[in-house]
């Protein structure tokens, strides 16, 4: 039991505060090697994390770095620095606090390495960079505590794995280091605790009072939600109304494109000129900072935003959170709702806005899940090896290392504790020689083993390039967008999107309609075009797939005799489906066959999430092609796949034979675009492809070539290469999501209901309006290309050539 020192006691008293039980618990157990606190936003979480450090440092006898604070966002580090200043200044504590992020100046960074502050606030990437310096032992000597904020967000991605690997390094440099994790509500706290602690240390979980349940409802409008789409334009008047009735509203969207379109429509309808801003990851930093500042100052009534505002920056008085589009994932919804009402013990208020008819069902299912405190999430796999490869390179930058020792160190990381020595050696070999079956790089190895057995960089100058490529955040190649003749960028668009633009095309960025003029020095030049409606959405973006738990809830809902919880129009729709066909059941696959516009259609209800249903579409059409059923195309959503073709499917059962599906999957996978995309990510992280070339892509000349070429070459000549193995494992879990196809096959165990009908069914109707139709077969693609070329030839009057 540690009593609060008098100076702290007084400070709490002058503020009129009582120390929260969880803050006390964190203090009492501060000497434990690892602790995790789960607390809602506004629950004094940050102070709970820092209190033991402030007390220890208040004596003024610690020299050098004492506490490291790591958060997923640069902005969060700056925010915390401001918040920490208050107690430190008011108690006049002899504590130096600094932050270190990508935005910190070069001089400041150099000084921090020579003379570290007591408390350093940073991000996982900046920390990894710090550990790559030769003087890392000096910087981290004497480090006592590390506080990882928003650990639930980090733990979901490779950034968390990188951070924990860096921590294993720090633990060696500073053996007394204790770890603290601060987390929002999650479905499996123990899993995150296991990742936080040094394996096999225990990690206690302290739960703060979660506060009252949120006040959450679904927006029901007079107007019926449309059959499909994600814009929720129909709900604009109702949303504006809600904004007017509240002080500050956050309006969350699932994708940037939807946020842009919604913001645009909101402005057109905003006749009262309410101050409303937009915030998402593709806007220029300046623009984001302006919005953030206006928000803090209380100048905005609403912000249209995406996940970029998901994390716990304190925006002040948000009293309503609106989620537009079905949340797809209950945990994320709960965390977003937590953004409203930062006052402890006041319920958060939130409104769900379904964007289309099916999302009404999804929203109701999500509401029920929130009420039942039933969070979802997928168990994480073992520590990713591409991140380990990068860690090995980072270690090499800091100086020669011993492989045995590094292996020991890596296996103290929870996610890597079952890593075999053989797997580790594969990664080391990859870093050293490229790991190719053709041992081509004997002369130019990246890492060399010295006579004393330690490994070092062949060329020490390589350290600079490795440092420039630290990080696991996968940024798609983007191009800056700016107004012609204006220096200031408006934001960024994906390179692939920019490539589809021709002069005169209009699109939305930062809420403005702009006209594409030209591409100059790798910058998209645009002019302002307020008078025209935008032709295209700006971002491709991937869509979230519905979580397994949510899908199951929806299936359970279908099982009900009636649906009092659903609005009339939606209940009626489900009723019609039951009458004319049947509603899908959890342990059966429903297949509907019907003709439409002269083509035979089948609609397969598998409820395996968008990515898996997309994969299923590929596999089924491939098999249909072999059976000469002439499939022409398909489209997938979270719950179904619709396929059309020239011949009817009379017996779908063989299509779903697990052995067939698995065999088809193997052939299909290797040539797949998703694989190439996944490969690109893994290869970049592992250091096979450089992201930040010192002489950036300034000329747009052929300096870089597509990573697809590397993928194809490697698949052809070295199919068992480490990078391909990593790619495969990841694709199975991620975008290909074969795991959920397997889950669907197990769940339904060959029970297939095939209904042959004479027209489009109610539940399949939205599928016809779904975007992202895929044409079948490589031959079809060539045909489209040839037809387009022929058309252009004819237009140009050179068809005779």
């Amino acid at each position: 039991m540690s009593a609060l020192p008098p100076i702290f006691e007084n400070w709490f008293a002058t503020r009129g505060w009582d120390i929260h039980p969880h803050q006390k618990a964190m203090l009492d157990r501060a000497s434990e090697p690892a602790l995790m606190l789960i607390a809602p936003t506004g629950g004094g979480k940050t102070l709970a994390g820092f209190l033991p450090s402030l007390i220890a440092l208040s004596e003024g006898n610690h020299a050098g770095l004492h506490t490291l604070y790591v958060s997923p966002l640069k902005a969060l580090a700056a925010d915390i620095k401001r918040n920490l200043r208050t107690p430190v200044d008011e108690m006049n504590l002899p504590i130096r606090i600094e932050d270190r992020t990508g935005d910190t100046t070069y001089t400041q960074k150099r000084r921090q390495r020579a003379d570290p502050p007591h408390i350093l606030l940073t991000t996982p990437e900046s920390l990894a960079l710090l550990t790559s310096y030769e003087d890392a032992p000096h910087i981290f000597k004497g480090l006592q505590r590390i506080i990882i904020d928003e650990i639930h967000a980090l733990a979901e991605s490779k950034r968390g794995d990188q951070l924990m690997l860096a921590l294993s390094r720090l633990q060696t440099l500073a053996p007394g280091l204790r770890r603290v994790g601060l987390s929002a509500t999650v479905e499996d706290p123990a899993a995150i605790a296991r990742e936080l602690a040094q394996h096999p240390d225990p990690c206690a979980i302290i739960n703060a009072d979660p506060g009252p349940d949120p006040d959450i409802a679904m927006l029901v409008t007079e107007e019926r939600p449309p059959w499909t789409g994600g814009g929720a334009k129909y709900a604009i008047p109702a949303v504006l109304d809600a904004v007017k009735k509240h002080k500050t509203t956050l309006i969350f969207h699932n994708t940037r494109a939807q946020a842009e379109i919604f913001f645009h429509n909101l402005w057109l309808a905003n006749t009262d000129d309410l101050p409303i801003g937009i915030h998402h990851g593709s806007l220029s930093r300046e623009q984001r900072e302006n919005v953030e500042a206006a928000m803090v100052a209380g100048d905005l009534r609403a912000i249209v935003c995406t996940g970029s505002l998901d994390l716990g920056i304190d925006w002040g008085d948000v009293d309503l959170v609106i989620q537009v589009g079905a949340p797809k994932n209950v945990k994320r919804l709960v965390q977003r709702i937590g953004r409203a009402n930062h006052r402890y013990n006041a319920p958060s208020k939130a409104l769900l806005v379904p964007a289309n008819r099916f999302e009404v069902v999804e929203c109701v299912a999500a509401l029920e899940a929130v009420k039942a405190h039933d969070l979802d999430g997928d168990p994480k796999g073992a520590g990713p090896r591409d991140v380990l490869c990068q860690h090995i390179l980072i270690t090499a930058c800091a100086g020669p290392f011993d492989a045995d020792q590094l292996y020991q160190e890596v296996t103290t990381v929870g996610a890597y504790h079952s890593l075999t020595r053989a797997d580790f050696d594969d990664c080391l070999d990859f870093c050293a020689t490229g790991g190719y079956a053709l041992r081509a790089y004997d002369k130019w190895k990246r890492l060399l083993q010295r006579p004393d057995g330690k490994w070092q960089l062949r060329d020490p100058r390589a350290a600079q390039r490795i440092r420039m490529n630290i990080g696991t955040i996968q940024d798609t190649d983007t191009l800056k967008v700016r107004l012609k003749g204006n220096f200031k960028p408006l934001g960024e668009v994906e390179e692939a999107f920019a490539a589809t633009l021709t002069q005169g095309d209009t699109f939305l960025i930062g809420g403005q309609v702009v006209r594409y003029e030209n591409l100059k020095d790798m910058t998209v030049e645009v002019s302002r075009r307020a008078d025209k409606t935008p032709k295209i959405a700006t971002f491709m973006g991937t869509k979230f797939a519905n979580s397994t738990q949510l899908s199951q809830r929806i299936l359970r809902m279908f099982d009900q005799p009636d649906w009092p919880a659903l609005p009339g129009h939606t209940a009626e729709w489900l009723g019609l489906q039951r009458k004319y066909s049947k509603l899908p059941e959890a342990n059966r696959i429903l297949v509907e066959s019907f003709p439409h516009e002269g083509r035979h259609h089948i609609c397969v209800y598998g409820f395996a999430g968008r990515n898996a249903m997309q994969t299923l579409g590929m596999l089924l059409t491939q098999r249909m092609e072999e059976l000469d059923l002439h499939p022409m195309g398909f489209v997938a959503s979270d719950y179904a796949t619709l396929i059309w073709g020239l011949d009817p499917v009379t017996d779908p059962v063989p299509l779903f034979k697990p052995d067939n599906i698995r065999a088809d999957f193997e052939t299909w996978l290797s040539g797949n675009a998703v694989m190439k995309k996944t490969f690109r990510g893994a290869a970049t992280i592992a250091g096979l492809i450089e992201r930040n070339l010192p002489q950036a892509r300034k000329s747009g000349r052929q300096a870089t070539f597509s990573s697809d070429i590397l993928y194809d070459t490697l698949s052809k000549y070295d199919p068992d290469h480490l990078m391909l193995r990593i790619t495969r494992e990841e694709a199975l879990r991620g975008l290909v999501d074969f795991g959920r196809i397997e889950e669907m096959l197990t769940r339904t165990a060959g029970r297939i209901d095939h209904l042959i009908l004479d027209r489009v069914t109610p539940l399949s109707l939205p599928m016809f309006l779904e975007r992202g139709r895929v044409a079948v077969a490589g031959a079809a693609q060539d045909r489209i290309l040839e037809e387009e070329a022929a058309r252009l030839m004819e237009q140009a009057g050179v068809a005779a050539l």
Partner: protein
Amino acid sequence: MNNFDFTLCGTRCSALPSGALWLPDYATLCVSDLHLGKSERIARRSGVMLPPYEVQETLGKLARDIDSAAPACIICLGDSFDDLDAATGLNDAMRLWLARLQAGRKWVWIEGNHDPGPIDLGGTHLSETVVGTLSFRHIATTASAEVSGHYHPKHRIAGRSRPAFLYDQERLILPAYGAYTGGLSSQAPDLRKLFRTSPMAVLTGRKAIPVPVA
């Protein structure tokens, strides 16, 4: 037929889907920008070790074209090697393969900006050469009746970008033939200014597809 035939300044030309140019009247096959040894050069200079299979891939493609066309003469139109050290660094198996491809035919290495000096790999080393009415050099000049490479042109239609031949009445620019090569868009000013009129593009791939450049 998957080739695309056209006539440039009186000489019959055939664009192969692989990116090679075939001159039927002279039994000559021309390929540009092989960039052999690119992965070796990158490893040497940056430490990044790309899959070291691009020489195999590129020579394999060339071997297939040679097999089907049976040329009497082959012109490599410059940047055949990513640099001169990459040429010397070629391993024995690849040298042997190259020697086999060269056997029984005339082989011309045109010098490029990446490989400006002579190389110890058989064949004739020239700064430029003439076949029929056409001159062959690595980088385009203002001269008429010219075939060159260097720019790695690509052209995009229907949302897909592919390496492409570009030609008008006066000149032809070949796509890069090497496996590890990026490309420059047909829209790029550096490329467009070489043509007095809007050029035609011939896309490479499964089939050589002609399309006018807008």
